[in-house]
């Protein structure tokens, strides 16, 4: 089964600081996603990434957020100036199959971000 490794598992930061969350898929994947989950709430779509560019983003994904895949391996989510309301679990996901039917999303274990 393919694995997605996320680092850090937990990050505590001061409001206004920049944060970079990393995702490393073990197997080759083309489609990447970031989701976030505020404690006890729903899993919210942030952004999808395909062919080294954003394919779709939600209204949550404002100018404070950016994604990139700088070295063809790591897939990163950057929050430029964190706010208290950015405190959440951030999940990286990859699409396992594509084609005629949509495939399943395989989630990493998540990075918990706490903004103080």
């Amino acid at each position, binding site marked *: 089964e393919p694995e997605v490794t996320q680092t850090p598992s937990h990050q505590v930061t001061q409001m206004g600081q920049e944060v970079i969350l990393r995702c490393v898929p073990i197997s080759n994947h*083309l*489609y990447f*996603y970031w*989701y976030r989950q505020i404690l006890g*709430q*729903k*899993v*919210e*779509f942030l952004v*999808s990434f*395909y062919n080294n560019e954003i*394919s*779709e983003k*939600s209204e949550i994904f404002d100018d404070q957020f950016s994604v990139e895949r700088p070295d063809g391996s790591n897939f990163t989510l950057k929050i430029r100036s964190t706010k208290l309301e950015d405190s959440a679990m951030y*999940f990286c996901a990859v*699409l396992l199959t*594509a*084609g*005629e*039917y*949509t*495939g*399943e*999303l*395989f*989630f*990493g*274990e*998540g990075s918990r971000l706490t903004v103080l």
Partner: protein
Amino acid sequence: GQQVMQIPQYQHVQEGEDFTTYCNSSTTLSNIQWYKQRPGGHPVFLIQLVKSGEVKKQKRLTFQFGEAKKNSSLHITATQTTDVGTYFCAGQGMMKTSYDKVIFGPGTSLSVIP
């Protein structure tokens, strides 16, 4: 925009009782997926339904996709303590591409009392 709703929000059952969660989309879906998230864990894919009226079973779990492809249900027969967790339905709208975003419902949190 597309919204996915689920009821109930919470369900407490005695071990051995059945459990059902219902999912409803504001728009027609091209597919419905179900995920399970254990407390403190990450969402784990359970199944995908694509066809109108489709029914799939996984041991004690039965999944249905409505005829209009706007609703779905998950039924667990004879719950066990290992079934504890939050069950999310998730779906894609009528897709332009196979990698379109998957929108999650708010989830149903299941507690099983031994």
